């Protein structure tokens, strides 16, 4: 699959809901190779921002562009081939198999009437391989654990052929082992040239697995920089109103102590 670089850029995004300003002049960009962690307290507007970036919500002012072209000028199908959404692992109403869910990622290439062709089947298999969920391929999605479901949804995004992935709290609800394995997967994907934007509630995860951290506070991006510069004890205290220390440990890593 060809891997030309992609850049998603938001400029001066403003969004109001019921007279309340949710987003107020957001500037943010995501390029291939990035892992951008978006932090913010509950209700800060992270989900609204994600939906604006995906073109699901139309901002009141400002615009989102993909490689210079405004999202509004791209058809949903063309957009889907370049920008993928990985929702939080959820329960589906019907027991589709893992392979069926991943195959949905090929919809933008087929339209409703075309059947899956050889290229599509290859893309599905390689996405399944890439995330190591081959053993689950025939299992019903509804019977998987949260972590396995999240991997399935990421595989679907890869099958989509999109270079940029937008993930809504990919590790929430996963057990400790699944969280760490998922973060490793994200690092591998970024090394392969994917650009990943993920929202998270864990400053630790942002320190461990992100090339940049952006903090959404009171409708603005308060800061957007490398993790060590953003995640200082003062900022965490101000943001979450808890006292913490940030310790530098071996290997140049940092951890949050509370």
């Amino acid at each position, binding site marked *: 699959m060809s891997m030309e670089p992609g850049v998603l850029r938001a400029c001066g995004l403003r969004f109001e809901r019921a007279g309340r300003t949710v987003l107020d002049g957001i500037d943010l960009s995501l390029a291939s190779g990035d892992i951008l962690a978006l932090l913010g307290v509950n209700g800060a507007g992270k989900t609204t921002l994600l939906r604006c970036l995906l073109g699901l919500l139309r901002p009141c002012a400002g615009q989102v562009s993909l490689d210079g072209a405004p999202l509004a000028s791209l058809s949903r199908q063309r957009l*889907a081939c370049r920008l993928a959404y990985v929702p939080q692992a959820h329960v589906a109403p019907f027991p589709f198999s893992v392979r069926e869910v991943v195959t949905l990622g090929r*919809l933008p290439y087929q339209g409703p009437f075309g059947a899956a062709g050889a290229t599509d089947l290859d893309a599905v298999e390689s996405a399944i391989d890439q995330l190591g969920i081959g053993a689950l391929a025939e299992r019903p999605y509804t019977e998987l654990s949260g972590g396995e479901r999240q991997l399935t949804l990421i595989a679907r995004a890869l099958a989509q052929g999109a270079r940029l992935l937008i993930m809504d709290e990919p590790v929430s609800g996963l057990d400790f082992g699944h969280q760490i394995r998922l973060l490793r997967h994200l690092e591998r994907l970024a090394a392969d040239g994917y650009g990943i934007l993920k929202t998270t509630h864990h400053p630790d995860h942002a320190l461990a697995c992100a090339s940049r951290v952006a903090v959404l506070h009171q409708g603005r991006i308060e800061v957007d920089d490398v993790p060590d510069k953003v995640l200082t004890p003062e900022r965490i205290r101000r943001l979450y109103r808890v006292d913490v220390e940030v310790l530098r440990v071996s290997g140049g890593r940092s951890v949050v102590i509370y």
Partner: protein
Amino acid sequence: MSRPVSPCSASKRRPAASILLPLLILLVVVITLVALGTGRYPVSILDILRFSAGLIGWSQLEPAQFDLMYNLLVEIRLPRVLAALLLGAALAVSGAAFQGVFRNPLVSPNLLGVLSGSAFGAALGMLLGGNWLLIQLVAFACGLVAVGLALAIAHAFGQGSLIMLVLGGIVSGALFAALLSTVKYVADPYNELPAITLWLMGSLASVEIREVLWAAIPMGAAIVALCASGRWLDALAMGDDEARTLGVPVALVRYGVIGCATLLGALTVSLAGMIGWVGLIVPHVARLLCGPGHSRLLPVSTLLGASFLLMADLLARSLADSEIPIGIVTELLGIPVFLLVLRRVRRGWN
């Protein structure tokens, strides 16, 4: 308590698509031949085939024999058989599509009130003493009005969200059920009320070939359109945002399915009264056969629904000396089938 089967063996036990569809078509053909042959004057399948060959000029039958068979098979039994096939397919496929669009396996085609609206319309037509054509037209129109009302409520109060569509359907269905009761209350209890009541139980007895052929054009188109939307429905079942980011035109698919199912439901009621359960149970049986993917589920439901309703009609007219309303047969048949299906699928719902 039966042990749950392992999912792998369950999916392996399903027949392959390449075998399943031809098998179901064969089932439809066989039941059609049996239904054509069954009645007060039984005709063997061999004789039906011989007559069919004569009809297209491949063989010669005695003229008297040919006329008798023509009258019996083509004029008397065929309209009914075709109607059962068409309506069964229509109810089953709209049920399956609705379950996908509303992301709920317990949804029936009446969710937005189309059957309630049409039932009221038909009763109103009878009360107005209209001829059969007027009754059918009023039934069809009221079915569309009922769904229109449900959509209007959903858009006025909730920007057309899924939950508001369901609530709008409940309000609209309740309104038309109340209106139907009103019509029954003011109907003449000696002639009109029994006619309305009997008609609401559903019957294919008074269907004419001309009506069936007319209805077959829009209904066939709607059934084909629903069957073609299968892959989009898979994505829609995962959620609106996900479907949109997969390139699916969500509003077009949702309202397209609602439009097709409304057309099918309203025409069904205006042809044959209320026939319950088909749209709810047939998709479940189909899922057991072919899995939940809608691109297979919709055609399988279509064929299975056609066979199911034809079988129900066969029972309705041959179980007792006088005919049993088909709505009663589908409900009595539907309940045990549904219980069997529940036993198999409950695992996924817990």
